[in-house]
């Protein structure tokens, strides 16, 4: 925790409990997530890492009969407060999903969607934002000549980078990655990982992954979760080399998971 003091906390989880119906899925989670860093959430299936991630942009709102307790502070404002506009929140907190999910529309329409729903009519402004985001997502050179093609005709890896670019258009501050490489081949995976590292200079990034090597490669901080508890949280290097908790060590060495 040596250099933590210099860093700004962007997202702070304060004693979060989460229930699906009567089943408790998260157990008093406390966690600080730092600005312009990549934080990885790891742990075996069902440990609650995706559930936690989806709280940060309130995707859990879509799940009926779920309930949350505690506070999740984004820039010191509790996102569960009644006066928080969930639409505003989701513009601030972008999300990239497990399976690439481009809309069955053209590449350009996919990119412009975020602005369109905001009511932006200025074509020039939209163009600028779209092009800029495609460049940021390192996709521009590959697709600049076929912006009007269907996004479904891109390869899986390109689709996922398009989804990343699509979420950049609305200028988020935090980006959530929910196992973004789960359905991709190693080369595409490598490209996405490079992109994540590239993007952290502009955004705060939280990534859920099954793949411990991936966590080690891309993240600055890692949180290990198990059965709804946060077992251990710390700088990635430390957590991987000298885990404090026995369960973390067992998970990292492949004894379970």
């Amino acid at each position: 925790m040596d250099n933590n003091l210099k860093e700004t906390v962007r997202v702070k989880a304060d004693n979060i409990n989460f229930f699906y119906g009567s089943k408790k899925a998260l157990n008093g989670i406390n966690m600080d997530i730092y600005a312009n860093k990549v934080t990885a959430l790891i742990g075996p299936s069902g440990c609650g890492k995706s559930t936690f991630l989806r709280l940060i942009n309130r995707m859990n709102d879509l799940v009926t009969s779920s309930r949350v307790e505690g506070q999740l502070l984004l820039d010191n404002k509790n996102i569960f407060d009644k006066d928080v506009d969930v639409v505003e929140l989701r513009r601030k907190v972008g999300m990239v999903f497990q399976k690439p999910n481009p809309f069955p529309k053209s590449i350009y329409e996919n990119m412009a969607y975020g602005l369109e729903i905001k009511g932006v009519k200025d074509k020039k402004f939209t163009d600028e934002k779209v092009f800029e985001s495609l460049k940021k997502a390192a996709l521009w050179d590959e697709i600049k000549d076929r912006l009007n093609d269907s996004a479904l005709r891109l390869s899986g890896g390109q689709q996922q980078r398009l989804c990343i670019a699509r979420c950049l258009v609305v200028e988020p501050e935090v980006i959530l990655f929910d196992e973004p490489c789960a359905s991709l081949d190693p080369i595409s995976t490598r490209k996405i990982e490079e992109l994540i590292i590239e993007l952290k200079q502009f955004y705060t990034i939280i990534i859920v992954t099954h793949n411990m090597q991936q966590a080690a490669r891309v993240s600055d901080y890692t949180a290990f979760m198990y059965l709804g508890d946060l077992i251990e949280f710390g700088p990635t290097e430390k957590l991987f080399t000298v885990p404090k908790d026995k369960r973390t060590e067992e998970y990292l060495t492949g004894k379970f998971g």
Partner: protein
Amino acid sequence: MIIKSINTQRLGFAALFVCIIIALLVLGSLIYFIFSNGISSFSWTFFTDIPRKSMTAGGVGPAIIGTIYLVIGSIIVALPLGVITAIYLCEYSPKNLIVNIIRLSVNNLAGVPSVVFGLFGLAVFVKLFNFHVSILSGSLTLGILILPGIISASYEAIIAVPQSLREASYALGATQIQTIGRIVLPAALPGILTGIILGVGRAAGETAPILFTAATFYARTYPTSIMSDTMALPYHIYVLMTEGTHPEVQKMIAYGCALILLILVLAVSGIAIYLRQRQRRKYG
């Protein structure tokens, strides 16, 4: 023992084969008879002229136009109601009492005999609302008749839109109505279209619901407004066969009408089935 069971299997499979052949033969012979007898009536005047010489000559133009009006009218009635019901069932309502009530109503409405729709239309649209026997009354009646079909086709199409697309849209800051209007409905459109086309086929061929609400025995002119009563193809066949004065001549005209109707219904249903199969392949 083994040989015996193999023989039973052969026999059994042959019996099933006969069943499907009978079904195909029936369809084939129906199409054959109507086609071979009906085609001789086809001519330009048959499609465009009004019936002449107490329906033994001339054409069936007003019946064709009347059927088209009724089909368009019933789609206008059923489409918004059907799609919005399906949206509500898929997107808004959790599994609860309301949904069960709506589902039960839709299922049971689908099972109501078509002549009962005719009675309903007669009592409510013709008499109570005073729309008289008119295209309006007929369209409303037919619209309610095809509503359950439109609902279930739309429901299937909307529920098949992958949840991941909705999540992507919400994650970009879209509201629910934006997500429905810009992502879900466009993606479901082919399926909804299939439902509409099947509805067209159904509305074009139904006779009992328009007997007392829209159809008229004979019209000298084309319908002029939605308040006019109208001739219609299926009703015209019925009239020719039951009230005809010159059975042999009028039978051939009825064949012609039946052929138009058959071609129309087979074509639209064929298109709908094709679209649906293509759609299913797309989502796997």
